[in-house]
C-alpha cells in the first residue's frame, strides 16, 4: 500500500428514505493530490465531501485517515487536519479578525496562536490590506466572506482541504482570489498536502486539479487526469 495515502474512502454508501444517494464509493487521496469532483447536481458530490468531513453519517463503508479508521474520540483531531469549507460562508458576529481568531479557542487547536502578520501577508495577494481585518464579518460580500473562510481554514495548516464549490456563488475576480489562496497553501508543502475540489465549472476543474472524478447517481462514473 502506498504510504503516502492520506485519506481513504472504502465502499461508502448512504441511503435516505429508501433512496440511494451514495452507492459504494471508493477513493484514495494521496499526499500531493489535487482531485476534482465533478458531475450533475444531485449526483452525490457534496454528500461525499460532507461524509469525508464527518458531517454526514454513512450506512456502510469505512473512512481511513493515514491507514487508520477514524475513531469516535478522534473526530475533532481529524477535522482539524481535514477541513471542510462550505459553499457559502456563514456570517458571524464581530470583525473579520474575531472570526479568524475563532478556531484558536477550540480544544483541537490548543497551543496554536493567531498570526496577524501571516494573515496580512495573505490578504495582500488578494488585494486587501490590514484594514480589512476591522470590517464587520456580517457586512462582507459573498466573495470576501469566502476569502475569510479559506484563510480561517488554511492558517491552521491542514493536510487536506475539502472544498465544496467554494467559488460557485462568486464573481470571476473573487473566484480567482479564492483559487490563489488555495494554490498558495498547497504550494507551501505540495508533497504533504492534498485537496478535493467540487466544481461545476470544467475550465476551473482543469485549472486547479490534476485528476478528476466524475460522479453520477451516487456512483463514480469516470476517473481521469486533466491535461
Amino acid at each position: 500500500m502506498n504510504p503516502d495515502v492520506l485519506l481513504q474512502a472504502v465502499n461508502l454508501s448512504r441511503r435516505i428514505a429508501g433512496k440511494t444517494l451514495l452507492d459504494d464509493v471508493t477513493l484514495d487521496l494521496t499526499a500531493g493530490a489535487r482531485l476534482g469532483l465533478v458531475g450533475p447536481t444531485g449526483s452525490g458530490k457534496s454528500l461525499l465531501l460532507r461524509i469525508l468531513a464527518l458531517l454526514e453519517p454513512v450506512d456502510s463503508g469505512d473512512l481511513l485517515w493515514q491507514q487508520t479508521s477514524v475513531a469516535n474520540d478522534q473526530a475533532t483531531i481529524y477535522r482539524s487536519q481535514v477541513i471542510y469549507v462550505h459553499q457559502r460562508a456563514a456570517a458571524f458576529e464581530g470583525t473579520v479578525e474575531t472570526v479568524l481568531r475563532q478556531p484558536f479557542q477550540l480544544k483541537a487547536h490548543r497551543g496554536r496562536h493567531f498570526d496577524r502578520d501571516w494573515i496580512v501577508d495573505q490578504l495582500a495577494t488578494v488585494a486587501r490590506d490590514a484594514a480589512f481585518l476591522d470590517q464587520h464579518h456580517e457586512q462582507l460580500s459573498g466573495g470576501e466572506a469566502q476569502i475569510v473562510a479559506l484563510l480561517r481554514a488554511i492558517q491552521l495548516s491542514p493536510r487536506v482541504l475539502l472544498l465544496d464549490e467554494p467559488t460557485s456563488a462568486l464573481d470571476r475576480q473573487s473566484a480567482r482570489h479564492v483559487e490563489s489562496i488555495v494554490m498558495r497553501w498547497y504550494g507551501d508543502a505540495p508533497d504533504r498536502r492534498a485537496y478535493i475540489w467540487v466544481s461545476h465549472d470544467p475550465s476551473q476543474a482543469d485549472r486547479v486539479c490534476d485528476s478528476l472524478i466524475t460522479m453520477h447517481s451516487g456512483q463514480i462514473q469516470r476517473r481521469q487526469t486533466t491535461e
Partner: protein
Amino acid sequence: MSPYIELTNLQVCLAAILIVINGVVSIVLRLRLEKTLAIASVRTVVQLSLVGVVLSWVFRVDRWYVVLAIAAVMTLIAGFSAADRSKRKFPGIRLIAITSVWSCAWILTGYVLLFVFQDLPKWYEPQYAIPLLGMVLGNTLNGISVGLSTLTETLVRSRGQVETLIALGATRWEAAGEPIREAVRTGMIPIVNSMMVVGVVSLPGMMTGQVISGMDPAQAVRYQIVIMFLIAGATALGTVSVVLLSVRRLFDVNHRFKFELIRTTGSS
C-alpha cells in the same frame, strides 16, 4: 370563627359575573372568542374543583405513597407540556423534558422541605409538599419549554455557523456554545424579571392567599422569598439540564449535528 371569610357557591357565582365582561367585549368587538371563553371558564371551574377534591382526599388519607403518586402525576404532566409547547421537536424530546423537570423539581423541593422548613411533622407533609411542588412545576415548566424552543430554534437558524465550527475541529459543546447560552439565558429571564418586580408591581398569588387566610404578612413574605428562590433555582437547573441533554441528543459522538432529527410541527 375562621380567620378568613368562607366562600359559598353563591358568592363564587357573583364573581362569575366578571367573566361576562369578557364575553360582552368579545361580542361587541366581534373577537369571536365567546366559545373559547366559555370553554376556558368551565375548565377553570371543573379543573380547580377536581383539584380541590383530590387535595382534600390526599390530606385526609395522609400517606407518603399517595403524596408521591400525586406528585409523580403532576411532574409527568408538566414534563409532557414542556415538550409539547416546543414548535420544533425531535425523537426523545419528551423523555428529556420529563427527566429535567423531574430531577430539578424534586431535588429542590425536597431540599426546601427537609432543610429549609426543617421541623415538618412528616417529611412528605402534603399541606407543604404538594402546593410547593405545584408552584415549582408551573414555573420551571416555563423555563424548560422556553429553553427548549430557543435551543432548537437557534440551532436550526445557525446551522451554518454550527457546522462551520464543527468543520474547523470544534466539539459539539464548542460548536453549540452560543445556542446553549442563548437558550439558558432566555429560559431564565422570566423568573429573574419577576424577582425584580415582585412586591412592587405584583403581589404573588401565594402570598396574597396567605395574607387573606390570616397569616402575619411578615411570615407570608418569608414564605414568598423561599418560594421565589426555590423557583429560581429549579428553573435554572431545569433549563440547563434540558438544554444540555438536548444537545447531547442532537449531536453524535463524532460531534456531528444531527440536523435531520429536528422536525417542525404546526402546534404552538
